[in-house]
């Protein structure tokens, strides 16, 4: 509570309030107590809304099973085809049984990203804690799957048979490092993109009320409003593309686990 008054005071002092990171704060939805592992927070709400959106578009929307689909049913079918083709194209037919898992990741991310673009909302995917769980989860799943399917042959992933013999240990080392960097880049890419976009929008939004404060606002305010619009359009694109990137990388890692020999 105390902090909010600080913010208000700063805003009055400086005229403009720059708090681009405030939107990422997690706070309990009811009351103002500490956040336990089970506390329902604003982050929880937006994650569960993403789940509701998935249920609406994919479970409720597909209930008609119409031969000529309704618009809602079409959305579900397009999403299904999109991810299913991605899984089968990248991992091959034997990757199709991991389709529900990949679809879960894609839909969770895409709906979190899209819902996070609503004004006043919260983006769960802008938090490294969330994306890291998914990134590390994929990493562990894929690594265990590789060892379970191929045993020690899975290590062939690091041993380039078509490279000169002298270079192979060096390449193996580099491959090993890059393998362990995967979950890091995988999760930071998503959180970083979403966070950066939202922060930039907030910075422009902070400039928007300039017209109420100073004469230069005649110029600054329209420019910032236009900039917010442009960044927002870009963010819609990014919201989808980052979900796509996360998903296709998951497929690529899955392919490495299923077919480790290059």
């Amino acid at each position, binding site marked *: 509570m105390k902090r909010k008054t600080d913010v208000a005071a700063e805003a009055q002092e400086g005229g403009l309030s720059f708090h681009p990171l405030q939107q990422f704060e997690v706070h309990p939805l009811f009351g103002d107590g500490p956040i336990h*592992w089970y506390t329902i927070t604003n982050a929880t709400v937006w994650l*569960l809304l993403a*789940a509701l959106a998935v249920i609406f578009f994919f479970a409720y929307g*597909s*209930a008609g099973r119409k031969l000529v689909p309704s618009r809602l049913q079409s959305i579900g079918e397009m999403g*299904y085809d999109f991810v299913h083709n991605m899984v089968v194209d990248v991992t091959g037919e034997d990757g199709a049984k991991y389709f529900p898992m990949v679809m*879960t990741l894609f*839909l969770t991310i895409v709906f979190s990203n899209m819902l996070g673009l609503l004004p006043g909302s919260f983006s769960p995917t802008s938090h490294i*804690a969330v994306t890291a769980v998914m990134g590390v989860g994929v990493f562990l799943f894929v690594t265990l799957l590789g060892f379970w399917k191929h045993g020690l042959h899975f290590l062939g992933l690091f041993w380039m048979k078509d490279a000169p013999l002298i270079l192979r240990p060096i390449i193996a080392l580099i491959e090993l490092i890059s393998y362990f960097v995967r979950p890091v880049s995988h999760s930071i890419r998503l959180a970083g993109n979403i966070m950066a976009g939202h922060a930039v929008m907030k910075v422009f939004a902070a400039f928007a009320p300039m017209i109420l404060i100073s004469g230069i606002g005649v110029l600054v305010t329209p420019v910032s409003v236009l900039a917010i619009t442009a960044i927002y359009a870009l963010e819609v694109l990014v919201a989808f593309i980052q979900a796509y990137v996360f998903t296709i990388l998951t497929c690529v890692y899955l392919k490495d686990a299923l077919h480790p020999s290059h």
Partner: protein
Amino acid sequence: MATTTTTEAATEVAHGAAKAGMPQLDPTHFANQIFWLVVTLLVIFFVLKLVALPRIGGTLATRRGTIVNDLAAAEELKQKVVAAEKAYNDALVAARAEAGKIVTAAKADIQADLNKAIAKADVEISAKAAESAGRIDEIRAGAQDAIAEVAKDTAKELVAALGGKADARSITAAVTARLKG
């Protein structure tokens, strides 16, 4: 109670530190976020796995089957159309040939009849012409005789009227000579 307050105080301190920087790096709500993320992922996974994906997959498969069947049916109908068109064309060609034959036969018949009729007519015409020629000759001969008779009588009367006396024989001879000339 005392421990709870210390924990809360510590939490508050950590909270404050994070608030100064990125809220994303505040570890106090990591457990919370991870817990609810796992819940969300499980909810979405089971909704997809048990309800949505089999349903959508089934719908898509049914649609693909229907489309394939419809295309096959369309192909079959197309074959039937081609066959029917061929049968129709064959029938048309056969009918044309038949009609041509009938026309030729009819033409031949008519020609034969015509030839027969012409020949018959020719014969009749020539018979009629011969008969007519006979009649004309007869009439002409009759007319010659009548003319000779009239000429003789007229000549006799003329001679008598002119006061001459002529014997029938010389007058006849004279008229005959004249008629010949």
